[in-house]
């Protein structure tokens, strides 16, 4: 029950609100229980009470005058008062009759010729009876009316109070639940920031989203309905058991068997429900992922006319989701209040069997009152039980969702560091670095090189030769398996991620843009980046011309992923972003591949100025773009095969020379 424990821990964060709500709940339940009691008292004592014994008395409070004599209900006499002759007021049909005598037993009543005959079984008795007129009857009721009104007013008052408390209870529980969910979401989101990049490589974004939003949403009910139902039901059940024990210890003890049954029930239910719920929740997450992926690739799906297949695959997820929802439903329909009904009826069967069987030939062994009360309590006992089992489904759903949430929270992460370090110079050195995305599959082998402030280092090689991996290591998106990477002589493993990245800038192959504006995508809404810096950076990359047609200039809205912009435009914005942050180490990973030569020339020019005071790494396929680099590293299958500047490498006549020749050759071939 680790999940349960942690769900409780979350609730405890808001225990004051929850306890207050539960106290309110107790008051409102108590007030609610008092309601029928008051109604019963009113009916029994004050309305049906007219048929109770009356005695002749003196004129006074609560006394009623009838035909010159005064009468008062027995219960209004105090101990010292003297009671006169007993009389009765009895109803036959809708009419009331005055009987100037006590009656020896009650039964079926009939009135003929001013006489009332009361029959019970074989016995019967005859009394003189006088029919009461409307006014005379009202006289008899008169002492009750203020009492009835008082009770009604009390009842209504109680109700109003109860509803206030009920409102408070519901509101505060929802408040607490929403706070818990909010806290949970904030926690997961914070945790997400701590997870290594690796974690996101194989987990579709849609699935992560499902954990943070949908799964937490599924927990909400736990803190509202489940909690309050379990709380009130437990109170009710305890109360009813106490009453049962007072009534008859042996019978009550037998009824205790219900508790282990409930425990076993819950246990068995969870075995199946948990399985189904796991599948349902994971399908919700798959559905999310698939919708996300389909939207991202919609133009491809449509261009290749794969709508049918895609919707077919979606149907499979949707169908599985439906199938397991139905399995769970079937389980719920077999259990829940349906099975409680069966349990109740079995109890009735046992009850009739036991008492009925026992009474045959012998007659009743227990008094009638006890039997009735017992049945009444059993009936009442099953109401809170129904409440509890009906919430089992919600409870289970919350537990499964909680498990998914907590398993994400349990992923190993590294604390986001807030330490700042002053801008380093940017002297980078790799010393015998080995690295693989998977165990024992090195994509980088024995990488050693140095790059100093103000230098430009170019990485060339075929796709997949490990160029981007080197940059991933420098950025600590991943950590090297062996070897050391140093910045200004300090091992980067000793510097927290955030601290080291503070002074790095990167322009990625797939530039990612956020919803916002062009300007906000450059500054990332970082308060340190002023509007001037943003505009300066955009100007430096030649964005002025490219975006000149936009109505709002740099405040033109950018939608999700910048999908209305071309790849080249996105690269420009991403480039400007890197410049705006003025990094000590700047990494350009195929940063200008989609930008036209003219704009690229603008950028090249700007770079001449910009590379001063920082170390620049360029990854490029076009050798032409890196000819001015101070150092060129030629990579092949994860190894540095050549190192030097353009001239040196050309003189070497090695791989670089060959690559260069090929590029030249290919373009002249085509030109020819």
């Amino acid at each position, binding site marked *: 029950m680790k999940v349960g424990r942690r769900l409780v821990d979350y609730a405890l964060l808001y225990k004051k609100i929850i306890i207050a709500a539960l106290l309110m709940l107790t008051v409102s339940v108590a007030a*609610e229980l008092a309601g029928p009691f008051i109604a019963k008292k*009113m*009916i029994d004592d004050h309305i*049906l009470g007219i048929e109770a014994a009356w005695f002749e008395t003196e004129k006074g409070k609560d006394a009623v005058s009838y035909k010159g004599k005064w009468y008062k209900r027995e219960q209004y006499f105090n101990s010292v008062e003297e009671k006169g002759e007993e009389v009765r007021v009895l*109803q036959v*049909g*809708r009419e009331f009759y005055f009987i100037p005598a006590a009656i020896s037993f009650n039964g079926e009543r009939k009135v003929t010729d001013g006489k009332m005959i009361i029959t019970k079984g074989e016995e019967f008795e005859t009394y003189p009876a006088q029919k009461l007129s409307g006014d005379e*009857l009202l006289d008899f009721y008169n002492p009750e009316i203020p009492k*009835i009104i008082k009770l*009604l007013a009390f009842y209504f008052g109680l109700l*109003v109070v109860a509803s206030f408390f009920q*409102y408070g209870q*519901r*509101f505060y529980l929802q408040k607490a639940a*929403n706070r818990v969910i909010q806290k949970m*979401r904030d926690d997961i*989101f914070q945790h*997400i920031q701590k997870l290594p*990049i690796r974690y*996101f490589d194989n987990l*579709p974004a849609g699935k992560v*989203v499902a954990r943070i939003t949908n799964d937490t949403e599924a927990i909400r009910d736990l803190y509202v309905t489940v909690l309050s139902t379990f709380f009130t039901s437990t109170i009710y059940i305890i109360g009813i058991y106490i009453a049962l024990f007072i009534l008859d210890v042996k019978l009550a003890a037998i009824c205790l068997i219900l508790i282990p049954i409930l425990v076993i029930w819950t246990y068995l239910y969870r075995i199946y429900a948990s399985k189904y719920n796991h599948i349902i929740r994971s399908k919700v997450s798959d559905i999310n992922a698939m*919708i996300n*992926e*389909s939207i*991202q*690739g919609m133009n*491809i*799906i*449509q261009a290749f*006319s794969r709508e049918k297949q895609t919707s077919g695959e979606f149907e499979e997820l*949707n169908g599985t989701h439906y199938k397991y929802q139905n399995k769970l439903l079937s389980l719920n*329909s077999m259990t829940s209040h349906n099975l409680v*009904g069966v349990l109740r*009826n079995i109890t*009735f069967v046992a009850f*009739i069997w036991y*008492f009925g069987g026992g009474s045959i030939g012998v007659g*009743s062994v227990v008094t*009638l009152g006890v*039997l009735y009360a017992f*049945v009444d309590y059993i009936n009442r006992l099953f109401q809170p039980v129904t409440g509890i089992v009906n919430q089992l489904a919600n409870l289970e759903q919350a537990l499964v969702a909680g498990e998914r949430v907590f398993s994400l929270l349990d992923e190993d992460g590294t604390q986001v560091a807030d330490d700042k370090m002053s801008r380093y110079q940017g002297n980078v050195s790799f010393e015998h670095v080995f690295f693989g995305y998977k165990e024992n599959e090195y994509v980088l082998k024995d990488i050693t090189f140095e790059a100093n402030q103000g230098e430009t280092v170019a990485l060339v090689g075929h*796709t997949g030769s490990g160029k*981007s991996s080197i940059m991933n290591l420098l950025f600590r*998106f991943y950590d090297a398996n062996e070897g050391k990477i140093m910045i200004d002589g300090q091992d980067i493993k000793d510097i927290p991620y*955030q601290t080291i990245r503070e002074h790095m800038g990167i322009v990625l*192959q*797939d530039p990612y843009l956020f919803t916002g504006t062009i300007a906000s995508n450059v500054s*990332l809404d970082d308060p340190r980046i002023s509007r001037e810096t943003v505009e300066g950076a955009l100007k430096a990359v030649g964005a002025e011309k490219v975006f000149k047609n936009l109505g709002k200039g740099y405040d033109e809205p950018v939608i999700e992923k910048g*999908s209305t912009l*071309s790849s080249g435009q996105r690269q420009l914005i991403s480039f400007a*972003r890197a410049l705006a942050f003025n990094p000590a180490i700047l990494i350009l990973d195929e940063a200008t591949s*989609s*930008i*036209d030569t*003219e*704009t690229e020339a603008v950028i090249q020019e700007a770079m001449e100025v910009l590379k001063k005071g920082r170390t620049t790494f360029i990854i490029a396929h076009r050798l032409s773009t890196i000819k001015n680099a101070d150092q060129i590293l030629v990579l092949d299958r994860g190894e540095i095969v050549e190192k030097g500047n353009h001239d040196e490498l050309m003189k070497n006549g090695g791989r670089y020379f060959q690559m*260069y020749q090929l590029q030249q050759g*290919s373009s002249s071939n085509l*030109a020819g």
Partner: protein
Amino acid sequence: MFSIFKKLSWFFKENWKRYSVAIFLLTIVGILDVIPPKLVGNAIDDIHLGSMSWDVLSKYLWLLAGITIISYAMTYVWMYQLFGGAFLVERKLRSNYMGHLLKMTPTFFEKNRTGDLMARATNDLKAISVTAGFGVLTLIDSSVFMLTILFTMGFLISWKLTIAAILPLPIMALLMKVYGARIHKRFTEAQDSFGDLNDKVLESIAGVRVIRAYVQERADEGRFSDMTEDVYKKNIEVAKIDSLFDPTIKVLVGLSYLIGLGYGAYLVFHQSITLGQLVSFNVYLGMLIWPMFAIGELINIMQRGNASLDRVQETLDYVQDVKDPDHPQSVDTPENVSFEEVDFQYPSSQVKNLTNLKVKIGKGHTLGVVGKTGSGKTTFIKQLLREYPEGSGSLSIAGVPIKDLTLEQVRSWIGYVPQDHVLFSRTVKENILFGRHDADETDLEQAIELADFKKDLEMLPDGLSTLVGEKGVALSGGQKQRISIARALIKNPEILILDDSLSAVDAKTEAKIIENIRNEREGKTTIITTHRLSAVQHADWIIVLEDGKVVEEGVHGTLLENDGWYKEQFDRQQVEDSSLEEVGV
């Protein structure tokens, strides 16, 4: 208020049997449920009167057992049918929803954010499902049972008293209407803000590298926590109304009780009803409590379902931006493609993005499209893909205007390699086969060969079966581009479109791929947009775009003679190369 049932009426009509059975059984069980306690009562009387015998006893036991079994079975059926219907509507709506998304073009996705669309497919459909299940149950409880009890009270006891007792009902209806409207509004807001939250998370996950690279973790946490606070506030607004339902009904039910008892006593005093009748009336009033709460519950649930259905319906009602023609024409082979005076403007744009475009591409020819970043190259291609409603002028294939052809036919001719390389979370093989499902091993191998992907395949851990993560994260840009190209080539399309698709591969690979395409695609049309003129030098026709207009056109040779932008770029690229050459020699 009940409009959700009206909006879902197609579903209820489709499943009327299911719902009739469920409601019928639900009603029967409602009656059956009252019998066991009554039986026990009778049994107690028999015990008390000493008239219990084994015969009587077994009669009771059999009866109880019978009712238990019947009621259990019936309850199972109605629950399964009723709530099963709820799941069915959820599933159907989700299918429709996805089907609709698959018909949508970029304009729609520009207006709707992915995270919100995801929220609609999960969170909102769940709320609708609750309405179709629990909502129907409360509807039955509050109508059928309530009316039954009311009529029983009226006929058996007193209409006067019954009507007096339900006097608070109109007040309740009024209040529920007010609450309902508020819940609807606030719940919509809450769901909207949930959608925003979803969207925020999605962006943060998708852009995680940027956030990490620029140390924006804290800022992002701050923004996220602002949003959870917003979701919290919206939900509290819902809770404020939601919590009002029960207490309000409780007070009004109490008022009914009060009137029932007070007026009931009055009627007894005035000898209109008997004492016994008053007691029974009290019992019936007690039975009315749940149906009355059910009314509140019903309204609450219905308004939530309604709000969510509106959100989902809003998406479903979005009219396809690009539709098939009513009377499509059919073309066997796309002979030539011609743009005549085509003007085009993006829905979100203030200026024309293509102006007076005139281009003819003969069958089997290659068209090169070059121009600066943002000059309209991709926009040009999107006309053929029909991603947007057509602009003015005429774009025709084999002489037939493209708008008279079905989308499917046009797309069946085209093999498209987009600028950004979208791969799906599957194996490399499946991603390539996405282009043509029935392709065999030879086709596959050939496509890989043509896209020059063979050597990379050897380096992938599981070769063709390597799973590429979402968007193929584990692959380099060049590898993604080449898978993308293989995907288009395996289709062996009539028209191949390469939209700046070689930007991330090196020159050698580019040359090889271009060469392969030239050789293999004899007699088929190819359109290439690029920044590297080397990729289009061989083209039969080259157009130079600037601000959506053709500023130069011709073959490589004439364009060089023209001494315009093309020549300038060519020289620039040549200078770079030759400067290398000088150093090299």
